[in-house]
């Protein structure tokens, strides 16, 4: 079972905009490798006659009619926001993009 490399952890950290020190990269690579190894145990029980699935229920086409339902009020919508301004969610500076 291929594990997760230190390079992959560095790449994911970059995507997630997390700054990790060399020590942390070693530390997390080891931890994540162990976690993925544990989850990968599932593949031992999979079989050719068990098709891969993304959903436990044998359902398709669950749809709703195009009818408007009440939304939250802006106050309710923003009630869980750590910060707000001008009736909008306030987030820190978005880095590394133009």
């Amino acid at each position, binding site marked *: 079972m291929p594990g997760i490399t230190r390079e992959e952890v560095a790449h994911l950290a970059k995507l*997630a905009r997390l700054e990790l020190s060399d020590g942390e990269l070693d530390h997390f690579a080891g931890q994540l490798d162990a976690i993925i190894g544990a989850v990968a145990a599932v593949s031992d029980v999979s079989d050719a006659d068990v098709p891969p699935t993304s*959903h436990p229920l044998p359902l398709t086409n669950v749809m*709703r009619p195009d009818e*408007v339902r009440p*939304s939250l009020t802006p106050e309710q919508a923003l009630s869980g926001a750590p910060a707000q301004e001008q009736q*909008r969610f306030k*987030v820190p500076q978005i880095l590394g*993009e133009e």
Partner: protein
Amino acid sequence: MTVTYEDALASYEPVMGLEVHVELGTKTKMFCGCSTELKQDPNSQTCPTCLGLPGALPVVNAIGVESAIKIGLALNCDIAEWCRFARKNYFYPDMPKNFQTSQYDEPIAFNGYLDVQLEDGEVFRVEIERAHMEEDTGKSLHVGGATGRIHGASHSLLDYNRAGIPLIEIVTKPITGAGERAPEVAKAYVAELRELIKALDVSEARMEQGQMRCDVNLSLMKPGAEKFGTRSETKNVNSLRSVERAVRSEISRHAEVLNGGGTIIQETRHFHEDTGSTTSGRVKEEAEDYRYFPEPDLVPVAPSREWVEQLRAGLPELPRLRRNRLREEWGITQHDMQSVLNAGAIGPIVATIDAGADAAAARKWWMGELARHANETGVELGELPVTPEQVARVAALVQEGSLNDKLARQVLEGVLKGEGTPDEVVEARGLKIVKDEGALGAAVEEAIAGNPDIAKKVRDGKIQAAGALVGAVMKATRGQADAGRAREMILEKLGVEG
């Protein structure tokens, strides 16, 4: 050294890929019942689902799926018998869920084509890779910086009213073989797609309102090369004219870099309306960086073949075929039809003809006076405060001789100003051709008496000179005389045969 467009085309073959996002005109969002009306009030159209709150479950909008299938069918695509949604993971606050619900390797529609007609009538086939369902993102406002852009901003403010609105992304296969006509093909493709979407009645597809947005991928290759060159991806090119200009400017830019011995890097670029050129954005994240995986909160979509066939049977006449039919019925050239299309006048003209006007008159008013007014006021032709029935009525008044063109223009102006129906404007402004023979006769006498030299010329046989006298009569009657009748009376008075 600057490379001209012609030089670039002499050395390279452009390869384009066009990605168009269409915002559907559904009443509700793709996965929740929030309205899509987009009131000005920020964050007034959100719910636990589109805010990505824990425990909320999305449910697919049936009309969203139906619209996607219709678009797929109109683009001659195969419709998947079974497909799923996928999570496109990324860290950016425009989606509160930290992922966008999209489709990945199982699009609802794939392998199609759209035939587009170029200005000279040539038909170019654009192959369609796929059309898939996804959702729009929220809107960010960057504050604290000088220009409202991310660069230099201290923080950003998010409005999620738009987050979750259904989008259909339509992706072409690489478009090759267009050569120097690549910019024209790109523009014609987006224009045709827009007409198609409108004809299907799944979206108003207004580019200026962001209901239809285009990303332009472009690369250059040496003629006969096996492999495409590295491409750039120009984002959010949001008018037909800009699509054409973006392709053109990227062709020149790529050629300049390549000729100078440089390499093109795969990156996102931004198009600037003012300069007509692009600037570098961010270096493109690879597809696998989004770590797509099947959306566990939604069950697969498996459109029955009966449903698909029913939708196919209900498809309208395709816009290109309809245009060709109308062009023949109206007896106009390909070029004239293109102008009518560009002006957004097909619908109004058809409706005016349906209301009783003849084709030439309907086209004349919509493409003349009304198009000019729409241009000046910056609204679409179909949104002017005048109905096709009213235009047909004006045409009828001209036809029966109650109005001439000049008066008819004044009547339309009155209607546009909200002065009432054409008949009410005619009445209120007193705009009727003077048919009163007495009043007209007096004006004719006056014109002859006031211009003895011209009158003599006409008497001596220079009948063309009568035009000046007709002009004097028209002036005296403030344009309300029947010019034809006035000419007859002048010639009669002067004793010459018309």
